[in-house]
């Protein structure tokens, strides 16, 4: 396959960026999108040019490191992560636009790499349970109803890639934050911090400069792990409940 790539190039956080055009040849349809970028970078290095910087780690679709808005879609045309997107999803001779996540809470570090540490700070605000560590507790000690376990697992699938923020017209982190809150709030292990968790994490989300939800639904469409839009509804419910309880105290 021969492709034309238009890639966002930006030297550093303070520099102005622009789209640069590159031609790549000899691309196999079985290559992943990242392997295609590796091929481009090898050529750029041989030519003595600066390779395109992009985030990647496990390349198995489970770590949440890879990003990229491909032809206007977060993680590209398939509902998966960029590392699991294969070149067979494109046609020979295609022109492909590659851009970084766009949100003021996710500043560009270089080229296609953005700083997603805002997510880490949201997790720090309450995305954990407080429990003594040590050997794993006996599995039957805390019974969890099956529907609750399923609900928790569906939200625990979130890998924190930030595609929801990239796809949202308001740069909102509602889907990420709601997935993290719902995952723990439904479980007995998360119950002691149920109210503080949702209040603190939502407050941190707002502090980071993410936008608000207008229920456009773009986030749930872009999510490679299929976190549903109703996750946000469930978080709103938790937030209202916690606010009412805090008001009574």
């Amino acid at each position, binding site marked *: 396959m021969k492709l034309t790539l238009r890639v966002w190039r930006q030297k550093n956080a303070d520099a102005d960026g622009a789209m640069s055009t590159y031609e790549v040849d000899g691309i196999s349809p079985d290559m992943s999108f990242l392997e295609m970028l590796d091929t481009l970078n090898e050529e750029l290095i041989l030519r003595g040019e600066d390779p395109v910087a992009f985030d990647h780690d496990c390349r198995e679709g489970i770590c949440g490191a890879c990003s990229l808005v491909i032809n206007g879609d977060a993680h590209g045309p398939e509902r998966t992560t960029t590392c699991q997107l294969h070149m067979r999803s494109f046609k020979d001779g295609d022109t492909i636009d590659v851009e970084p996540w766009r*949100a*003021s809470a996710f500043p560009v570090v270089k080229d296609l790499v953005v700083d997603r540490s805002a997510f880490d700070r949201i997790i720090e605000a309450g995305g954990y349970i407080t429990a003594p560590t040590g050997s794993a507790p006996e599995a039957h000690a805390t019974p969890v109803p099956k529907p609750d376990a399923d609900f928790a697992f569906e939200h625990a699938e979130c890998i924190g890639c930030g595609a929801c923020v990239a796809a949202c017209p308001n740069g909102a982190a509602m889907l990420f934050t709601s997935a993290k809150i719902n995952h723990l709030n439904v479980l007995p292990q998360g119950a002691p911090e149920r109210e503080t968790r949702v209040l603190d994490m939502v407050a941190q989300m707002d502090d980071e400069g993410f*936008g608000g939800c207008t229920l456009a639904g773009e986030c749930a469409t872009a999510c490679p792990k299929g976190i549903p839009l109703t996750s946000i509804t469930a978080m*709103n419910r938790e937030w209202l409940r916690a606010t009412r309880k805090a008001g009574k105290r």
Partner: protein
Amino acid sequence: MARTVWNSTVGKKTVMAVSGLVMLLYLVAHMLGNLKIFFGTDEFNHYAHWLRTVGEPLMHYEWTLWVIRVVLVVAVVAHAVSAYQLSRRDIKARPSKYVHKKPRAGYATRTMRWGGIILGLFIVWHILDLTTGTVHSGGFESGKPYQNVVDTFSTWYGNAIYIVAMLAVGLHIRHGFWSAAQTLGVGSRTRDRALKAVADVLALLLTAGFLAVPVGVMTGVVS
């Protein structure tokens, strides 16, 4: 608690949802009342007069009406201020657009902001036209709402403004009602279809019900 609500994006959306539902409830009553115009001059004017005497003798003349007006003004202001603050925040959170643009979200979703502004301007015109009579086209006479309504819809611009606003209100409710359910946490996967259907039916019925009046005047059914 009030401070927590107002300072949070989730809380401000709650304010929008509740104030929106208050206005929606009023719109349903307003639309049903409007349809009384098809029963003739006397019945419509009598209904308008009754609106001022509701609650008597406990309430004085027009008191109930003023209570409703105050509630509505509070709702409109709360809705508009939250929308303005949240929109500013949203635009700031996404300063640079993607080079590769794609058509996004439904028409109703994309027109919420402009639709809201159009509705705000419409409300001002509507009150100046048919409540105070300031910008009324014919000889405005308070206490004779039937003739006033016919006068308004006898002008091309009266019809045009009204029809545009009613289409905007339909779109606004279509996305707004369903969104309010999500914001208030009552939506769920099993209820989603039902909520969307209710939103569509409400939007359609309100738009059709409100548009029946100018269409009635234009076709001569109401004159």
